[in-house]
């Protein structure tokens, strides 16, 4: 769960780059796109302030400065660029020592904030010049032997410019809480996991009608037929309701039942193979249907050629909830390459391609729409000390959409957004 918190930090600083949370518990940190400021130094750096015998605190601060080529995600002819700066502060406290956890009960609390500023003479950009984005997280886990228990909560506020400069910013307050119970009878060959997740997603601005609450129950059973390889059966049932009126959104009860393989297939390669059935169960309007529409596929392979490098490739087929339609079918392919060099350099390059086929669009003038979405991110940081780094980063977001419209002119949903940054920070 701590790793999930790390994911949120990346999400926070990514801003426009939609992070991809194809994270797997335990191996997490697989974030596609521009990577936020580092949370910890690369390698085996032992950092942190030992507040007491059992309390360890990490603190950090960083700044990024660069250029955003397209603040409002507009087409190439109307793109407005601006200088951009981001500064971040965070603190993280856990009951641990530099050598690791100090007890069976593990507690982690984290809080921080990012300040983003567009520096431009363009009045349209100036309206969205400043944004404060705080975040916080809490995780508690305990477990030994047969039973394990975990509680986690993460909160984040994000604020992004809208697609149209005359609109208000898209501000989002997202809180996700979860409770998990794990049971491993016998020698741990069989493991059962039950988890409840609650998400409150408050949206301000043009998308406020999408403010929602999601309750999700997950039941997972796995049989570990090798020490780090298991076959599993997973059932996830969601309950999505919308809190604003009026809203075109309808309640839905997404169900996913999957089975497959998780774990190592060689010493250096781990895979996730999940195949199964899914259904959106939207209470009105379009809903998932057909063989492909009811099929869920998640394939992922993680290769660690050396102890300092990691390659992840993956593919996913399924559906996702959408704010401009009931949902969209999606085909996603992604890849990530992480390399540490000489325990000083940290390189991260990743990208993904998503094909989105929207179903049940709320705009009556656009009955059909498909998007080809590309995302690319690259960062390289040099750790001057194990607590100080300097680096550069690049992010690309691009959309190539096709909209079928009943009006003479179809809306243009294509854009290319590029960001470059130099960054400097400390994390201890």
């Amino acid at each position, binding site marked *: *769960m701590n*790793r*999930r918190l790390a*994911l949120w930090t990346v999400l926070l600083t990514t801003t*426009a780059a*939609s*992070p991809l*949370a194809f*994270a*797997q*518990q*335990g*191996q997490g940190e697989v974030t596609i796109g521009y990577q936020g400021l580092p949370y910890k130094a690369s390698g085996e750096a032992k950092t942190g302030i030992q507040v007491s015998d059992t309390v360890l605190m990490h603190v950090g601060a960083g700044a990024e400065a660069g250029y955003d080529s397209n603040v409002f*995600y507009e087409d190439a002819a109307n793109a407005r660029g601006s200088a951009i700066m981001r500064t971040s502060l965070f603190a993280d406290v856990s009951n641990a020592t530099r050598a690791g956890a100090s007890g069976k009960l593990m507690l982690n609390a984290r809080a921080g904030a990012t300040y983003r500023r567009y520096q431009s003479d363009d009045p349209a950009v100036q309206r969205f010049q400043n944004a404060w984005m705080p975040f916080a997280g809490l995780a508690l886990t305990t477990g030994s032997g047969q039973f394990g228990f975990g509680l*986690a909560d993460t909160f984040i506020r994000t604020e*992004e410019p*809208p*697609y*149209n400069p*005359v*609109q208000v910013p*898209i501000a989002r307050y997202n809180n*996700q809480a*979860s409770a*998990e119970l794990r049971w491993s009878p016998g020698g741990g060959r069989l*493991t059962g*996991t039950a*988890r409840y*997740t609650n998400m409150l997603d408050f949206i301000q601005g*043009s*998308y406020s009608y*999408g403010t929602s609450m*999601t309750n*999700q129950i*997950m039941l*997972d059973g*796995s049989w*570990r037929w090798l020490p*780090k390889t*298991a076959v*599993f059966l*997973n059932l996830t049932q969601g309950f999505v309701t919308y809190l604003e009126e009026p809203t*075109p959104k309808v309640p839905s009860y997404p169900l996913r039942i999957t089975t497959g393989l*998780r774990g*190592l297939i060689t010493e*250096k390669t*781990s895979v996730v193979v999940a195949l199964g059935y899914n259904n959106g169960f939207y209470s009105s309007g379009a809903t998932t249907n057909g063989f492909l529409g009811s099929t869920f596929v998640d394939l992922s392979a993680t290769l*660690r050629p050396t*102890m300092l490098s990691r390659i992840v490739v993956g593919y996913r087929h399924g559906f996702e909830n959408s*704010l*401009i339609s009931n949902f969209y079918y999606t085909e996603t392919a992604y890849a990530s390459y992480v390399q540490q060099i000489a325990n000083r350099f940290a390189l991260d390059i990743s990208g993904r391609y998503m094909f989105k086929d929207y179903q049940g*669009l*709320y*705009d*009556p*003038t*656009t009955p059909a729409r498909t*998007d080809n979405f590309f995302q690319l991110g690259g960062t390289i940081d040099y750790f001057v000390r194990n607590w100080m780094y300097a680096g550069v980063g690049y992010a690309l977001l691009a959309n190539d959409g096709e909209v079928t419209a009943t009006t003479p002119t179809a*809306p243009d*949903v294509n854009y290319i957004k590029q960001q470059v940054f130099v960054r400097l920070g400390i994390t201890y």
Partner: protein
Amino acid sequence: MVNAKALLTTTFVASTVFAQGPAPTPIAPPSAGGAVDISVKQRPTLTPEEMVNQAKDYGRNMTEVLKRTQTLQDQAKREKDIIRLNCVTDKVVQVRVNISIAEQSVAALQEAVMRADEGERTHEFTRLTIVNQKVQVLGAEAENCIGEDLSFVGATRIDIEVDPNIPQYDPTLPPAPGIDIERPGEASPLTG
């Protein structure tokens, strides 16, 4: 026959004389004025008071050795190191016995001092010195007692060496909790 015997006897005697070589120079007798003491000193030159004080120092040193060996004994008990404990206990017992002897000698020494019995006083002081040296040796031996760590193989232990390439996390766990949120798509009538 008589002549042959005489010749043989003469020959042996002459050979003996030649083998001795020249006679050594006689040592001059000590003169009364320039005395050189080459005898081994048999008696201490300490005064009675100095002997008593020295005996007290010996007593303190031996008591310190006893305390130290008892500490070592307690340490071995705590560590449940039976082999070392036996060794140290043996030294403690011997130190106590020697201290007992030393106490008797101190008492006898003080009596001899009071009686001005030089012979007895010297005897008891010598005995006390020897006992003290023995206690110091016992103390050193107690420090060097070896325990299980070297002489006892201990319980069977299994060392597992895991290939460092194998990740430490558990990849069989289900995905971490969390629901993805991402920037909504653009929709002109609703979002401009």
